[in-house]
């Protein structure tokens, strides 16, 4: 019982760090301390791992400790957070692109990766897929299928960002905003973020297909 309470406390802190991390990744300019960090440690902030990823990793560390104390509870919390976090992030990331397909198509062209005639159809389809899969991973029980779709999307982002870095194209990733040319460090941050987010995605593929409600109340809903 004591172990469960301690695990609960650790998981609460992990949840707070995880939510902060996700919001920091999604809206880095809203958080005042990110400005403070840029001023104080420009090099560390620009060339090291994004602060949001650090918070997410700290949350993972707390989860590991909680897992030793109460594995079943920790797994439930981890699956819920991973699905809400990844789903929410994909929904937020798609909104800007859905609102302005033209600017997103212009941004995709800057990657110089896809054949010219495929840029517009991809700029129309990609945000729709992000939005629908983001919603689906939260509300539907198809965890494995949605995680595989997220994995494919992450792979496509990683390949495109690596291509941009390899060819020295300092462009914005277009993940959460549609801007023009950007600093190369931004591309590195996006690449590292996508690589880190592969971990929960791969883990979710191994989980059982069930809705978020079924995770917490497995016997009540059939």
């Amino acid at each position, binding site marked *: 019982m004591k172990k469960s309470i301690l695990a609960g406390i650790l998981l609460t802190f992990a949840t707070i760090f995880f939510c902060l991390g996700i919001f920091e990744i999604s809206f880095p300019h809203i958080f005042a301390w990110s400005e403070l960090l840029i001023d104080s440690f420009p090099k560390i902030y620009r060339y090291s791992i994004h602060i949001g990823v650090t918070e997410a990793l700290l949350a993972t560390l707390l989860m590991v400790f909680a897992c030793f104390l109460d594995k079943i509870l920790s797994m439930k919390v981890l699956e819920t957070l991973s699905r809400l976090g990844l789903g929410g992030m994909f929904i937020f990331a798609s909104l800007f692109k859905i609102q302005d397909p033209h600017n997103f198509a212009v941004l995709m062209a800057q990657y110089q990766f896809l054949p010219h005639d495929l840029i517009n159809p991809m700029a*129309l389809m990609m945000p729709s897929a992000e939005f629908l899969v983001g919603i689906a991973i939260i509300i539907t029980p*198809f965890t494995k*299928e949605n995680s595989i779709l997220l994995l494919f999307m992450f792979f496509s982002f990683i390949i495109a960002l690596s291509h941009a870095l390899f060819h020295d194209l300092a462009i914005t990733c277009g993940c959460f905003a549609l801007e023009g040319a950007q600093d190369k460090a931004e591309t590195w941050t996006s690449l590292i973020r996508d690589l880190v987010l592969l971990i929960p995605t791969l883990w979710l593929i191994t989980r059982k297909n069930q809705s978020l409600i079924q995770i917490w109340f497995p016997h009540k809903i059939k």
Partner: protein
Amino acid sequence: MKWKQTWKHTISVLNWKYFIAIAILTFAFAIVNNLRQSPETKVDWIGGQPLLEETAGEPL
């Protein structure tokens, strides 16, 4: 070895109809979304966009 078994199991239990349903929904969503755009934000289904001058690096 365990990973191999996990992957084999995952592939065998996948609901392939779900992928088809998501693909159809995505296509329908993209069509509707493009139709409701203003002329400034709308794009043609076939075609691309020019490279911006401010894009750093040499064009490939």
